[in-house]
């Protein structure tokens, strides 16, 4: 167990370092960041002054380690646009994204797991068919378009929910529905296939044969094994929900991290963008690593592998 976890943590650490280097490198993708900050009207002297003020004149490796070093103690640099610490701006916005992401994730699980189980109990039954329609349409409809259309229908035509913003809890209803809609198909599919596989095994047949009620067969015996692949996928989906909210936030005018990232990109506020990319990537690494460890705890067979 310990070697498995320590190996997994080592890989996670390496991924974190690489990701930090990549998001740092993004700053230099456009060429000279000093010229970018000075703007199209900036003179050569301005760019030179900026280069010295921001430390762009130092070797790039030194700049990187400087950035990582201060990131480790919680300093992600200064916003070029607002001239306040990046962590402060992000701190103000992260709540909306986390609320949206976690509620959507919860809703998706609550919908997907029972639906997946019901579909697995009667393959090709009507629940299975409805589930298939949800899955197929969920993969074909662009999220931002579904968001806009739901605003038109439920916000404008019926007036059930506010059109934009998160001033009240009602403002979260549509974004949560739209965002969770995209996490449901995959979660449902893996619950269904896991359940179908488990339900065909001998020990389930034995449990049924000894007269155990179906409800107990599912909850005590089948679900426990079917849930294993779900844990890894759930971690991936939660990460994708958080980064996928960039589009949803801009559609519903929610002031979260995603919208902040987009606005910062439009005003070339690169330190903010870098920080958000880094945070989302680290969050993803954290979630998938936790899922792997959780899986190893749940299923002893996995500890030997990889």
């Amino acid at each position, binding site marked *: 167990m310990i070697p498995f976890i320590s190996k997994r943590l080592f890989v996670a650490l390496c*991924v974190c370092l690489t*990701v930090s280097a990549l998001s740092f490198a993004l700053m230099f993708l456009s060429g000279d960041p000093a010229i970018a900050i000075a703007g199209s009207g900036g003179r050569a002297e301005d760019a030179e002054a900026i280069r010295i003020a921001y430390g762009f004149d130092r070797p790039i490796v030194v700049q990187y380690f400087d950035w990582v070093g201060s990131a480790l103690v919680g300093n992600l640099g200064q916003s070029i646009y607002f001239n306040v610490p990046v962590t402060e701006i992000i701190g103000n916005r992260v709540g909306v994204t986390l609320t949206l992401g976690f509620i959507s994730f919860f809703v998706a699980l609550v919908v997907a797991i029972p639906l997946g189980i019901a579909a697995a109990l009667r393959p090709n039954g009507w629940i299975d068919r409805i589930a298939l329609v949800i899955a197929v349409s969920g993969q074909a409809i662009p999220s*931002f378009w579904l968001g806009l*259309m739901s605003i*038109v229908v439920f916000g404008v035509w019926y007036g059930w929910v506010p059109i934009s913003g998160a001033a009240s809890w009602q403002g979260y209803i549509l974004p949560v529905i739209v965002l969770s809609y995209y996490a449901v198909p995959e979660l449902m599919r893996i619950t269904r296939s896991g359940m179908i596989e488990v339900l065909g095994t001998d020990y389930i047949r034995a449990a049924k044969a000894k007269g155990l009620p179906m409800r107990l067969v599912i909850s005590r015996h089948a679900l426990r094994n079917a849930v294993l692949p779900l844990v890894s996928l759930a971690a991936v989906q939660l*990460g994708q929900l958080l980064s996928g909210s960039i589009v949803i936030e801009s559609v519903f005018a929610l002031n979260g991290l995603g919208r902040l990232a987009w606005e910062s990109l439009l005003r070339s506020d690169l330190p903010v963008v870098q920080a958000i990319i880094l945070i989302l990537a680290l969050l993803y690494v954290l979630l998938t690593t936790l899922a792997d460890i959780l899986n190893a705890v749940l299923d002893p067979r996995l500890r030997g592998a990889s």
Partner: protein
Amino acid sequence: MTDATAETKRASVWSKMRANTGVMIGGTLLALIVLIAVFAPLLAPHDPIAQDLTRRLLPPFWHDRSVPDHLLGTDHLGRDYLSRLIYGARVSLGVGLGVILVSGAIGITLGLLAGYFGGRIDMVISFAITTRLSLPIVLVALAAVALGGASLTTLITVLGLLLWDRFAVVTRAAAQSLRHQEFIMGLRAIGASPARILFLEILPNMRAIILVVVSLEVANVILLEAALSFLGLGVRPPTPSWGLMISEGRDNILFDPWLIALPGSAICLLVLAVNLFGDGMRDIMGPAKK
């Protein structure tokens, strides 16, 4: 394999394709959209970027105010909506194909190398895949396009460099299982070079699963292009991209919701066609994924 068995095998794939409703519907729809994209100049009634400010925001044919000259109405600059939708198919399919060429080349090469050689090479490439998966794709693509300057070439390059992961994962697994097959061992024993084994023997054996990944990824790319264009960091105006059309129609959704309903439906239809075709092909070709 002799010519005769190859012939019957091809014939059986054909008959299976015809028996599969998903493949038939998806394939027909997809072929139709491809034809529309190819013959766009012949089909479009107007120039898709010609503005006519005297005829702004005309509604489609089912409205009373509609004009027969503009079947699906006009947008906020008086451009013919039907023509823009027709040319939009070119952008979606073009970006889809362009990105797949780049990402497929990268992913398949990496996957083949990792799966066939194993060991250190596999470790490095698997690490690259893990790292790539941890990047928030929409955000990184947005940032890269913003910094590289929004254009069709930048978009295709950026998405191509980002979306190779599924190709790599799938070909890696397939190469791992093929590596120990007798015909590959035999080739290695008679001294065939690794390049020959990889590209002339292993790769052709993966056609089926690669086709499935291509369809999944084309759908993915089309949706991403639409999202990026919608956020203003994809295709540049006045190019008629469906995602961009939705973003331009957004200001008028209160009174003219068809401005976003039409291009959105076009995206859905295309992605649905690609998905139905790909899913059906996966069923025909046997279990390819997982």
